[in-house]
């Protein structure tokens, strides 16, 4: 896999595009006051080529009285490349300095998207940015850099058939945003043998303002298991974890999705009472994904977590021969055993994941960090 550095992009037929609605404020890009729109000119600013012609990725532009819109402009995803970039954006002040409550998200991405995650920026290790900054590859691929950054929302839909994920939160429930709060939007596109991105990448997200006077705050839970290994000599393995809520919390799970790569056969999530190490029964299962490349986003859930309990997840894998042979897989393996072992990593082609995204309410006092 090559990195996403645009200077290496071997497609001279592309032209550099510059969209008219890009606005610079200070060091970065910020809110367009007329449209309430955050616009990130991802590659255009860096002088990188953008694919032309680009069919429009349609999502309405929100005016400040309805919310705010975020747009990552079209960018190139050349053949044989995985692009993972981190875009830093500032929550606009559309509420006279008051917090903004959001009770609906609409997200759309061009076909081929592997994932798109939005986090609230917290502890800074080696990844940071000011509003409008973009970090391409590099530290944007190192997950320890955002391990304690609370999840806002994510989408793994990247199909042309169902381009928009339109998620309305449960009645009276909303996420809180502060004007000026720094968010990081992470976009991962793959254009290789397992996933194709024929038309380049692009992301649009709409954050719709809640009309409820005193909404219940939604919280999120993001978990990732990184010590995983799927080897030729031990082809069928599973990894699972669990994460608990504070003992006094009584939470409802409203939505969930999971993330694994091509060797994953299934990912399940269960409510867990926290009392036993026994695997929860099928009646406790609230999410299952059997599709690594288009995992479902379960919404409309109302799973009540037993007090003092939490969420249990299981990722199941079956080793398979890499499309391009074992060399690239072996090269990533720290143990260098020559056993064609897939280990945790960003590359959808040569590495694996076991990630869990859970949306619940009411939010507990601090974001839940599951490691």
């Amino acid at each position, binding site marked *: 896999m090559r990195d996403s550095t645009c200077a290496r992009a071997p*497609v001279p037929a592309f032209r550099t595009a510059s969209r008219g609605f890009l606005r610079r404020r200070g060091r970065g890009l910020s809110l367009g006051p007329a449209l309430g729109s955050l616009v990130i000119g991802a590659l255009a600013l860096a002088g990188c080529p953008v694919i032309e012609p680009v069919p429009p990725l349609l999502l309405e532009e929100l005016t400040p009285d309805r919310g705010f819109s975020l747009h990552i402009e079209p960018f190139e995803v050349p053949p044989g490349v995985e692009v993972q970039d981190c875009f830093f954006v500032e929550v606009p002040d559309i509420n006279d300095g008051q917090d903004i409550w959001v009770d609906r998200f609409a997200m759309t991405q061009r076909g081929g998207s592997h994932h798109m995650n939005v986090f609230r920026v917290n502890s800074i290790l080696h990844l940071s940015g000011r509003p409008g900054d973009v970090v391409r590859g590099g530290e944007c691929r190192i997950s*320890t850099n955002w391990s304690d950054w609370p999840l806002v929302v994510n989408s793994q839909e990247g199909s042309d058939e169902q381009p928009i994920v339109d998620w309305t939160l449960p009645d009276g429930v909303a996420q809180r945003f502060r004007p000026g709060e720094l968010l990081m939007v992470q976009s991962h596109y793959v254009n290789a043998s397992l996933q194709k991105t024929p038309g380049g990448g692009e992301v649009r997200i709409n954050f719709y303002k809640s009309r409820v006077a005193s909404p219940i705050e939604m919280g999120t839970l993001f978990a990732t*298991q990184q010590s995983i290994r799927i080897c030729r000599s031990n082809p069928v393995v599973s990894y699972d974890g669990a994460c608990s809520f504070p003992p006094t919390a009584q939470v409802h799970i409203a939505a969930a999705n999971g993330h694994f790569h091509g060797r994953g056969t299934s990912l399940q999530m269960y409510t867990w009472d*926290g*009392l036993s190490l026994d695997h929860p029964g099928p009646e406790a299962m609230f999410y299952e994904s059997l599709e690594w490349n288009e995992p479902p986003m379960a919404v409309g859930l109302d799973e009540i977590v037993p007090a003092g309990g939490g969420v249990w997840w299981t990722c199941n894998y079956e080793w398979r021969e890499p499309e391009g042979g074992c060399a690239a897989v072996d090269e990533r393996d720290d143990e260098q*055993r020559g056993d064609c072992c897939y280990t945790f990593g960003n590359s959808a082609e040569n590495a694996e994941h076991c990630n869990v995204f859970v949306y619940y309410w009411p939010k507990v006092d601090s974001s839940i960090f599951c490691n």
Partner: protein
Amino acid sequence: MRAKLASLLFMLAALPWTLAAEGCEPEPPHPPPPPPPQEPVILGDPDAEAELELVYRTVDGRIAVLEDGGDVPMILPPQGGKVMLIGVRARNVTQQLQINAGIRDFCTERFIHREGRSVRLVEGTPLLAPLGGLPEAGAPGPRERPIDVWGYPEFSADLLNYANIPVCPTFTSLRDGDDQPYALELRATEQRRPGEERARSHVLTATIVPVCAQPEIEEDCRCECDADFVLEDGQGRPVTREQQCPTIHENDLPFGVCPET
């Protein structure tokens, strides 16, 4: 000559388009099926009673036998936070085990975290010595080896063959994650042996005290493990380490004492 050069130039000019055009790429070959499951390898005597003991990975990547009531070091894993690496040494069991381990808060009787995974043991590794992984080619197979040798987690320095039990930060426990006693429980389930309807399962328990043991991150670890550690305040504003760590230990509870609720 000129015609050949023009042809070559044309081919070079067309190459990017060829690469970019989705329809021109050959269909990827259908991957072959994975190898069939192997019959389980038994470490030691298949007819003898299974013996298992809890072990943990030390900060420097070695293995130590876990003592009831003893300290267990926490490390910084790639995913962040602090975890204990708990495994087993065993004999007369299948080489491949599914382990499932968690720690329980004595004050609430609830598990604060747990983790499960497939692990592989290898025989004949001396205690507290770095492991070398699988036997070298030509070395005697497991059946020929002395049966008083334990099987230890393969790749002792790696995190893969231990349960990675998260401890810090914890938003579930009422006490600090470090320097307080917790109940450890580990279940090890063997591969199903031929002729058996159910796989054999073994339960191991101990009281342990997680400790911050990596010198370079000890202060950060102790702050992150405090029961009062938060990522955000009640209004959703991030709370940094600088803001909370200097005073976070002021109300720490004595060892083994539960808070009043």
